[in-house]
């Protein structure tokens, strides 16, 4: 019996091994980071979007606007201009200004909200810092979820949302110029939802 207990415990420990441990990160002194990709209130951030969701693929125009401190608006329209959704993020508050009736489902809105919060969070709360090879990795907590921010050559290249030691959502930022990521990719690991954004 005791053997069984300890083996279950061992199993739990192994499967729950933390994300940094599994990936061989080395602990470093905590340092804060800033996500500047959507931080300029004078800019309209406009992207061509391609969304693959559960076997369907569709496009549109994805728009992010910073309106003030911790205050962003995110909207998605068709190429012809019809608005699909329009969300406000202000501090801890989230508001749906508009969403097409067919998409007005709590579960879907929550997924989008969680994804977009990562894009607009400028100063994520850093709990721990790590290093692996040339990457500096910051463990952050955002709305009670754990994220790892990967910085290569001081540029934010990747964010991973982790749950139970496993990658749930991966955000990739590439072709970075002047604090603008020309390409952004959001990939969900546990269901088929991928969002690809290309700056216009």
């Amino acid at each position, binding site marked *: 019996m005791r053997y069984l207990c300890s083996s279950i415990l061992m199993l739990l420990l192994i499967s729950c091994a933390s994300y940094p441990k599994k990936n061989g990160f080395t602990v470093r002194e905590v340092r804060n980071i800033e996500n500047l990709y959507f931080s300029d209130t004078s800019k309209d951030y406009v992207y061509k979007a391609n969304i693959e969701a559960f076997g369907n*693929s569709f496009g549109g125009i994805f728009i992010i606007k910073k309106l003030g401190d911790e205050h962003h608006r995110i909207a998605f*329209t068709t*190429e012809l201009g019809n608005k699909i959704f329009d969300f406000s993020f202000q501090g801890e508050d989230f508001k749906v200004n*508009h969403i097409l*009736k067919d998409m007005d489902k709590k579960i879907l809105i929550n997924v989008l909200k969680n994804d977009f919060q990562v894009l607009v969070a400028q100063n994520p709360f850093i709990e721990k810092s790590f290093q692996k090879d040339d990457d500096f990795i910051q463990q952050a907590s955002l709305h009670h979820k754990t994220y790892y921010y990967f910085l290569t050559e001081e540029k934010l290249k990747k964010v991973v949302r982790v749950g139970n030691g496993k990658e749930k959502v991966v955000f990739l930022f590439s072709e970075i110029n002047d604090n603008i990521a020309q390409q952004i990719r959001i990939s969900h690991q546990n269901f088929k939802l991928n969002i690809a954004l290309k700056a*216009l």
Partner: protein
Amino acid sequence: MRKLVYILFFMVLAVHAQSKMNTSEANALKATVKALSDETRTITADFVQYKHLDFLSNDIKSEGKLAFKSPSMVKWEYVKPFSYSVLFKNETLFINDNGNKSNMDMGSNKIFKQLNQLITASIKGDLFDASEFEVFYFKNDENSEVHFNPKDKQFAEFIQSFHITFNDKGEVQEVKMIEPSADYTQIIFSNRATNKPLSDAVFMQ
């Protein structure tokens, strides 16, 4: 005092730059547009689209080409700043998103049917008999502006009002689609050519 009167006078004038048409003016416009529409077999034009969202500093500008062939083949092709086209043909919507092709059957979708009707109308202008819209007529300098408000609630959630501006020849110059939130999409046409032979190949995807 006299200054104030002048200012008030000009304010009133400014407000009245767009004035309501009387019934005979509206009927004359309908007749002009209908006559032009009846003899229109093809149209090609360039367009510039401005998407206005109240919270943005600037409207989002895109440009493209439009082709229409009677009775109801329409192709909108965006060329700048992205490559994207939609083709309305045989109750089907064909989409080419930078090489990724897909299509959608519009036959069963009321919203798409109305959208297609609006799009065809926005090119030909001939929409006055449609029972699905409340129609209002205005004069705007040399031009005429007609407002179409969808009666269908589901559609009105999408577009609250659809404004078409005609020149004195009855050609559509500008289309504005206004959302319930007051954000809008404005499309301005230029280089319009009517009844130029257009091969069916233009409407292939």
